[in-house]
């Protein structure tokens, strides 16, 4: 417990509920219900849940797009209900969305990267430095003066990440940013997010319904029907078959095979990745 107290909490959500309502205050859809969680600085967190589980609602709450009906959301200690400081929150919480085409404002990549810092009133010379840095970070420097239209989905999404990085956020939220991509594009985006977390110490919150993207996470949160039904390390979550069933998720092949084998009485360790599974099976007599 002492160790947890020492760690720096960047986001804390306390008993938050939110329902979507129409203009005439009629109930339209459930968002989230009684969710409490906290995220530590420098963690790679994954929010897992199927469509309609409330995971995107949670993302919108983190950025102050919507404010909770009850409960509080604190980002860096600032309440998202505080309208005067909403841009302090949004510049620190960078958000990348699902469709890369719908989040680019400019037809030239460097102009798109400049948009965020321009809005924040960052001096010209510094914007220049930030663009160079952000493009290097996502390995897209050679595309600086080009149009985003000819890029692949994965490349477009990396540009979208760079456009958010140029605001120098402390937290990066990827709201289903891999959902529209092919396997290669998904791998590119995942690799970029992982690298940002490991090398730059950025807090990353990845929202997805692919369990295999949660394998390398520090912490996994599982949402179902708007409620937080489980949290822990990937190893803890992946082993909990009951939980996964309740969340309507699908275990990665390696984990489900190793679970089957363990249940059949084979002496192998629980595997998260293909490599671990192969290693476990090879060690069998």
């Amino acid at each position, binding site marked *: 417990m002492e160790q947890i107290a020492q760690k720096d909490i960047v986001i804390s959500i306390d008993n938050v509920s939110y329902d979507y309502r129409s203009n005439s205050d009629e109930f339209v859809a459930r968002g989230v219900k009684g969710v409490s969680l906290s995220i530590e600085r420098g963690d790679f967190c994954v929010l897992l849940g199927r469509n309609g589980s409330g995971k995107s609602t949670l993302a919108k709450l983190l950025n102050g797009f919507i404010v909770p009906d009850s409960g509080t959301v604190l980002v860096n200690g600032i309440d998202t209900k505080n309208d005067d400081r909403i841009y302090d929150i*949004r510049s620190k919480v960078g958000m990348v969305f699902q469709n890369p085409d*719908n*989040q680019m*404002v*400019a*037809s030239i990549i*460097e*102009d798109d990267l400049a948009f965020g810092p321009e809005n924040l009133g960052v001096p010209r010379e510094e914007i220049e430095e930030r663009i160079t840095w952000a493009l290097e970070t996502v390995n897209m420097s050679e595309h600086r003066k080009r149009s985003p239209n000819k890029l692949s989905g994965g490349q477009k999404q990396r540009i979208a990440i760079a456009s958010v990085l140029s605001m120098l956020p402390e937290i990066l939220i990827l709201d289903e940013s891999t959902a529209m991509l092919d396997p290669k594009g998904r791998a590119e985006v995942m690799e970029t997010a992982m690298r940002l977390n490991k090398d730059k110490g950025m807090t990353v919150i990845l929202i997805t319904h692919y369990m295999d993207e949660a394998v390398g996470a520090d912490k996994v949160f599982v949402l179902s029907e708007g409620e937080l039904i489980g949290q822990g390390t990937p190893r803890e979550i992946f082993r909990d078959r009951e939980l996964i069933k309740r969340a309507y998720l699908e275990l990665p092949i390696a984990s489900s095979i190793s679970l089957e084998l363990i249940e059949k009485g084979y002496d192998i360790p629980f595997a998260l990745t293909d490599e671990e599974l192969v290693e476990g099976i090879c060690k069998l007599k």
Partner: protein
Amino acid sequence: MRDVSFGQYYPSNSVVHRLDARAKLLLTIAFIVMVFLVDNLLAYIPVVVFILLVTLVSRVPVLKVLKSIKAIIFIVVLMSIINLFANAEGEVYWSWWRLSITSGGVLTAINLALRLIFLVMGSSLLTYTTTPMELTDGMESLMYPLKLIKVPTHDIAIIMSIALRFIPILMEEVDKIMMAQKARGACFDRGGVFKRAKALLPVLIPLFVSAFRRADELALALDARCYNATPNRTKYKQAKLGWGDLVATLITGVFITLVVAINNNFWGLY
């Protein structure tokens, strides 16, 4: 994918590309006004030469500039035909019932076609050599006086920039929707005008729905990137008028004078 030349930037680092967007905008407007004042076929010769020179200096492939005409060819033909019969002055070449083709009509038709073609060539040269962002920044800067009477010039500039950015995306979407409808037996290229127009309805409705959905997501993305966070917004690309702009203005000025002079037979050449 159909060829959408208009509004497409052709990357290069030529002298024309480096000119200030504001200078290019004003010079293009001056060029267009001039083209519409010319009514002497001889005066079009320097216009062609000028367009060719600018194209060569800008290193945009000549073919690309010519292709921009393709988009308006229908309008050019239609307008020419209407004008061919509208003007009944001069020598009569051919006549039937109330229609007649006269030398005056032929002249107006050619004049109009050339005007439209030069207009499109001139403005597509502008969009080929200027990024949409520079263009909108330039417009914003030129609209500065309006800001004093509280016109949100910056918002207008952003709207224009987003519109330009989404032209190719929506075009692609039209293609996809049309293919999807064709796969389900829709037919877009048969029947009369009305039938064809009606056939486009199942394309337009999904297109609008998707455009609104995109607008919704884009609005979130703009907010996420702190749009309107501060009134003291900075500009990454600060355009500065340089010597090149002065030279370009002078050259264009000389050229316009030349064209007007030829047009009005200043030297008594003919």
